[in-house]
């Protein structure tokens, strides 16, 4: 029998611990390289780094009390919009997935129409349409327009994730549930969805992370989220590099936290199967 040995399956003589050490060294080397390039690049531009001016935009001390700066204020708005949009997107997603899998022609057509329209037009255009066109007609405000646009957009993608997860549950599970006399609703809620959720969770996390990032677009309709606050500060201070790096860092912290949390949840869900 021929055995294939791939180089990355080889463990160095020192064992797994030295493998980890080598990985860390490689990582530091890459980061070091990038930093060096950055520093050299900005030196050549003659950019004057003023990191010391950044903290005041995050928080400040007034009368011995910690006060949130504009960036943290913006972050709260981002949280608010992303949180509500995420909840609504899950509702839209699950509903659309169930409609799409139903036997009714109307329901399927409705779901498909929604999916095609949302997935084939840019989010920015949808946002403008909802805010500038639907907004005045339906009398919805800026913040709600933003939440609606984001949740409709991410909901379309979430629905495909839900659908794939539901379809992936073995046919025998439906049959066993039906043969016991369970209603369709009980079958979904007690048998199918609990099994599908494990498979749905990782791609759904990806979608939630996209949502947080896409929420930066709401700055275009003058909502004072994290991104909008950043632009405002830069317009005042010309601290373009420092502020954009800070903002990118904040988004990174949110998304990494989110995926770590979900990873934990997945481990807890992984009882059987």
């Amino acid at each position: 029998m021929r055995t294939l040995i791939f180089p990355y399956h080889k463990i160095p003589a020192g064992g797994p611990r030295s493998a980890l050490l080598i990985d860390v060294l490689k990582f530091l080397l890459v980061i070091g390289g990038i930093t060096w390039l950055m520093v050299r690049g900005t030196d050549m531009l003659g950019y004057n780094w003023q990191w010391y001016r950044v903290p005041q935009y995050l928080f400040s001390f007034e009368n011995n009390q910690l006060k949130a700066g504009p960036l943290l204020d913006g972050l709260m708005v981002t949280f608010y919009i992303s949180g509500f949009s995420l909840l609504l997107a899950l509702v839209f997603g699950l509903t659309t997935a169930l409609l799409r899998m139903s036997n009714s022609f109307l329901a399927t057509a409705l779901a498909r129409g929604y999916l095609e329209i949302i997935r084939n037009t840019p989010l920015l255009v949808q946002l403008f349409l909802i805010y500038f066109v639907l907004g005045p007609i339906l009398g919805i405000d800026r913040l709600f327009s933003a939440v609606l646009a984001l949740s409709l957009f991410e909901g379309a993608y979430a629905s495909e994730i839900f659908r794939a997860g539901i379809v992936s549950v073995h046919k025998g599970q439906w049959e066993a549930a039906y043969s016991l006399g369970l209603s369709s609703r009980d079958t979904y809620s007690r048998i199918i969805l609990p099994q599908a959720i494990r498979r749905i969770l990782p791609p759904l996390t990806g979608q939630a992370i996209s949502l947080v990032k896409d929420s930066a677009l709401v700055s275009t309709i003058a909502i004072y989220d994290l991104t909008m606050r950043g632009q405002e500060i830069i317009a005042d201070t010309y601290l373009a590099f420092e502020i954009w790096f800070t903002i990118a860092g904040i988004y990174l912290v949110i998304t990494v936290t989110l995926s770590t949390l979900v990873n934990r949840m997945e481990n807890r869900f992984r009882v059987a199967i």
Partner: protein
Amino acid sequence: MPEKMLGNDIITADKINKTFPNEVQALCDFSTRVRRREVLVIIGPSGSGKSTFLRCLNGLEEIDSGSIVIDGVPLDHKKENRLEIRKEVGMVFQLFNLFPHLTVLDNVSLAQRLVRKKSKKEASETSMELLRKVGIPEKANTFPNHLSGGQQQRVAIARALAMMPKVMLFDEATSALDPEMIGEVLEVMKNLAQEGMTMIVVTHEMGFAREVGDRMIFMEEGEIVEEGSPDQLFTNPKKERTGLFLSQIL
């Protein structure tokens, strides 16, 4: 074994036809009646329509024409009738189909609570009793994937029994099992038959068929080729095809 007293008809299947979307005709004017306490064994080559017949009986497949009446309830397009029939007809599948995210106890209890509206305590008591009956009360709190195939199938039987069905359908219940585990499942089925459960059993276990079956149907291409007592079919088949099939699998 003393002669069993059979009751009146509980299942009436009249001229049922079923053609799958791929043009395969699985059932062709298939008619039969099953009496209370009767054990009907159905044999036949693969693709002969025996599983399809079982699946039609509890509405997992829709029939194209004909009628099915179970204990006075017609299996038609009415949702209530369909649910009513599914409550009264238990089914055991070839691949067990246990719910992997629930413990053994919850597998057995779930439908009692959701469909029969029993309290949690009541359902658990019934479930434990049934698990004792199939011989695995000690596995109540384990998850199905920690059980052997034979144990899983016994849980599946307990799960179906928990609904207190009037009829039990067994769709090749031992075909997916390792040989050494077939016996334990057949034993449970044998006990059920002795208690007077009405059963329709699709199987390749001829020893079981002969010992437990009251009547046997040999079918091929969606039709009944021959029907009679198992002894008669084994020792004195009237049709050449029946004898040929039995000689191939015995």
